[in-house]
């Protein structure tokens, strides 16, 4: 890959062979409108100023770069820093995207906002911006996820959103996305669908990446100031892949920086019970995009398994598929057990309780840090806080709260 000329998606919304717009005909005009509006507003200084202002005053950006000193000492190798997206308003990186997309929705004159959610973080981040702008908000969430993320369900309701339980298919994130698409096709005139990951049909992978890339942009400034150089390695968890894309994207052309995405290995990639399409999937089409998927030989999408609802998705953003094939980003997997282990480690040694999604990135750092020189710097995108996962962690460990 000629990294200097990285300019994706192309005019057809593709990242190499990946991406595209595989949707029913009824949605094409809405996607075209979104693409057109987006192209216009990213050239519009007042729009960008409005996004910037909301990121500062509503979200609380910039998020700090924190040195995990005790954890670094315990692991005895590379220095570990955390990009603290958990400190954002609503507790995760997801709000970076919803703040931007809700302003886009208003530009298009849409009165109604819909979104899918897995862990509930994107649902909460959507409900919060909808409340702030006085827009109707419907969140689609799989029944299984509603059960394992109940605090977030109530949070969305408090924010005035309607939470629709989805009981079709596997009752998780992918089915919530199917249902959101069905709603969108029905209410396409007055509704904007805020997709929460770098997934779905073009232009969503681009829009969600761009709004999240504030994370990587800040990290560039912070690391220059703090270390006088860029980190050696950046690690992020990958479900659909928005937090990873957000922190990776500004570094794609900086070849000295190793970029590592960590998928949900569930019970282990070799067990087949996981949610790691980049590690163990094949190319197909789902939710409007061509990308790596977990599927059987007939092209039926497989059920996924992960302790973290936010990573429990059989696909991945098309840009990640492209970056995997070109080798610019390396993709690994961490198991449920490794993630839980790191969840406890960070909570006990640093006083920071990470989301279970994020814990997958921590688990991989834990694996490699001890073998690295102590001059090396690893930055982990601490994509979300773990309060929402307490009941789930307790349940996995046989406790009741």
């Amino acid at each position, binding site marked *: 890959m000629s990294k200097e000329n990285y300019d994706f998606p192309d005019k057809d919304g593709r990242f190499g062979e990946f991406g595209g717009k595989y949707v029913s005909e*009824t949605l094409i*005009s*809405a996607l075209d409108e979104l693409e057109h509006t987006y192209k216009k507003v990213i050239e519009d200084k007042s729009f960008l100023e409005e996004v910037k202002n909301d990121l500062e005053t509503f979200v609380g950006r910039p998020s700090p770069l924190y040195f995990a000193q005790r954890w670094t000492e315990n692991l005895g190798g590379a220095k570990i820093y955390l990009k603290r997206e958990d400190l954002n308003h609503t507790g995760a990186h997801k709000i970076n995207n919803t703040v931007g997309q809700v302003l886009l929705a208003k530009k298009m004159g849409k009165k109604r906002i819909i979104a899918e959610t897995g862990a509930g973080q994107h649902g909460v981040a959507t409900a919060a911006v909808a409340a702030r702008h006085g827009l109707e908000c419907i969140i689609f969430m799989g029944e299984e996820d509603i059960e394992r993320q109940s605090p977030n369900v109530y949070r969305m309701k408090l924010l005035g959103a309607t939470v629709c339980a989805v009981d079709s298919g596997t009752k998780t994130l992918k089915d919530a996305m199917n249902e959101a698409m*069905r709603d969108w096709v029905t209410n396409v005139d007055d509704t904007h669908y805020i997709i929460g990951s770098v997934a779905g049909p073009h232009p969503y992978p681009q829009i969600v990446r761009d709004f999240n890339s504030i994370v990587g942009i800040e990290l560039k400034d912070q690391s220059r100031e703090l270390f006088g150089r860029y980190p050696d390695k950046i690690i992020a968890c990958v479900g659909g892949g928005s937090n990873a894309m957000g922190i990776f994207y500004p570094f794609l052309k900086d070849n000295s920086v190793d970029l590592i995405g960590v998928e949900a290995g569930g019970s282990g990639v070799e067990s087949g019970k996981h949610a790691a399409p980049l590690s163990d999937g094949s190319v197909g089409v789902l939710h409007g995009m061509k990308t790596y998927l977990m599927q059987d030989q*007939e*092209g039926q999408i497989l059920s996924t398994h992960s302790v973290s609802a936010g990573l429990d998705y059989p696909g991945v953003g098309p840009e990640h598929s492209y970056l995997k094939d070109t080798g610019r980003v390396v993709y690994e997997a961490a198991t449920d057990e490794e993630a839980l282990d790191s969840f406890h480690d960070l909570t006990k040694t640093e006083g920071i309780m990470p989301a279970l999604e994020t814990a997958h990135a921590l688990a991989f750092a834990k694996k490699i840090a001890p073998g690295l020189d102590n001059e090396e710097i690893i930055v982990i995108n601490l994509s979300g806080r773990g309060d929402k996962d307490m009941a789930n962690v307790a349940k996995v460990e046989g406790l009741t709260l």
Partner: protein
Amino acid sequence: MSIIEKVFQNLKKENKKALITYSIAGDPNLESSEKIIRNFISEGVDIIEVGIPFSDPMAEGPSIQLGHERALKNNISLLSIMQMCLKIKNDHPNTPLVLMGYMNNFLSLKENLFDELKNNKIDGLIIVDLPYVESEEFLKKLNDKGVDLIRLISPTTTEERIAKILASSSGYLYYISLKGVTGSELKISNELENRVSEIKKQTKLPIVVGFGIKDAETARKMSFCSDGVVVGSKLVDEIGKFEPKKENILNQNLTSIISELKHGIS
């Protein structure tokens, strides 16, 4: 001339409209779905759309979603569906069989797809999530094998796009009657009729209307402005009531739905 063209030509001569059914292969099981299709043909259905079950049927309403779920429990393959079609085709060479489904299932056969379609005498494909911009290469390979790619046009398709879609279409055009999923409540309006009439002026291809047609009345009104109607959810709902020992009753009920619809469009 393709079999699809012949069907519409004959209907036109008799001043009739096409009745097109949609049912899902493998629902309630592959053997019964074959009987259901054979029954449709003997009741005078003009074109058969064979639904390919998918784990994530995003464009479908509740009725057809349930049908897909029922069919998937039988673990049937796309190849076995095509083989079923060939058996039917051998007995009814003049009835077009069109596979309707989602891109990922068709991709699963990779490059073999095109030969298999030809060898199993499939007349056309409708791929719900393959809009025209993504289909160039795929279309060429299909047309090389004499298989039509039936295009969908919706109430939100712009004039500019319609022209492009028409330029690369064959077989017939499928006009989606409403903004929504299959089986939604259809409100018949002048706007809908005008739009179909407008498209008709731009093409020689037959236009059929689908989504939300569930009785003689909706079928009749939609057939006025078009060359035919597609009925799906209504049939799939009925198939959902299947009981193993009462297959005859199911087919009797389906027969009466078909004759009601045929009456509606005649």
